[in-house]
């Protein structure tokens, strides 16, 4: 399967709604083990919400190694590549069930250290 991103959303990969469109279009094929190529020719501007939804959330459905094997990316500029890599790293580490009690305790501990 090959998808022209510009045909789907235009020249800007910025907002999460456009990312969701891409996710909806490719998730099934990837889950079936098909190779998917995203062609970014003609798309010049990128921001993290787009990639969080287009690619990052695929890691809910597919293991990172499988995603890297099955998802091919073409004609994506350096900026876009950097954001995609960050998004994949971030999504791979993401857990919906964080220990927020520990997070608050850690922040308070640091706060006390800094004010003391």
């Amino acid at each position, binding site marked *: 399967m090959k998808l022209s991103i510009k045909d789907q959303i235009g020249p800007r990969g910025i907002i999460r709604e456009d990312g969701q469109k891409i996710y909806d279009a490719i998730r099934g094929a990837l889950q079936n083990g098909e190779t998917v190529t995203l062609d970014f020719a003609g798309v010049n501007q990128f921001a*993290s*919400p787009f990639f969080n939804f287009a690619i990052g*959330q695929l890691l809910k459905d597919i293991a990172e190694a499988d995603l890297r094997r099955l998802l091919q990316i073409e004609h994506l500029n350096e900026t876009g590549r950097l954001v995609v890599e960050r998004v994949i790293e971030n999504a791979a580490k993401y857990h919906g069930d964080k220990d927020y009690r520990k997070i608050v305790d850690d922040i308070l501990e640091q706060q006390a250290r800094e004010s003391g």
Partner: protein
Amino acid sequence: MAQKVIRIPTLNDGPHDFARLFGIWSETNDYFEDIRFDFSHCNFLRPNAVAFLGGLARLIQSRWKTVTFDRSTLHHSAVMANLCQNGFAGTFAYPSSGWDGNSIPYREDKALDMNGIMDYLTYNWIGKGWVHVSDRLRDAIAGRMWEIYSNAFEHSGTEIGVFSCGQHYRRQNNLILSAVDFGRGIPANVRFFLRQHVEDALVSKLSGAACLKWAFERGNSTCTGGVARGLGLDLLKEFVRLNQGKLEIYSNDGYAIVDKDGERYENRDFAFEGTVMHITLRCDENLYRFRDEAE
């Protein structure tokens, strides 16, 4: 009708100036039906003040009060010229259409208008010719700046939108953009989010600075829904550091600064309900190149 006259002082973009802006915000929270801004003591307004006052006017109007920018008090020709040039005067019912100069237009976004905001950042801000950058780099910088608007609309709960203004200062060779919202504020948002998981008594102890610091760390987000987020501010910080610029955030009682010396978080004595993101970039062309772009 109870009328309040608020004198607008000369406003730069130092901490003292922001404190005065938040003081003005506080004054407008008292009960008055009509608020008049008097500029007779104002000799200079930086874009952060323009964006803030414009947003404040919309906030006042959203509470069914009236607000007037008293033109008869605009004695200082430079202030008047600046407000006309950046389109602020025209927005608030004075006959002026703005013109090209060193100012980056005053802008109001009630909703997240992707193409409108990206065009503003791409062509009116970074791409206006203040600094010669390739189209590729211009597009990359605009994408990083987008994260400001994305954060404001996604997290602040602002009901009246986001207000922006900028300026190129030729002498300092700086490019400034200020974006203001009158939403909940980042610390309030972080506390609200954490209270859903941890008891209130502990969360209430978190300072504004600590909340801002948490929000600025890569991967931390108050969004729920199973999609990893929390990269926007991190990407923005990284860009500002590479540019040797400065990113300042005032939100509730918290203050954050990212510059060449690192990042610092402080608690302030003054506070307001909302967030100001104030970015100063250096227009040094040596700082604006991809690795593969030749000198």
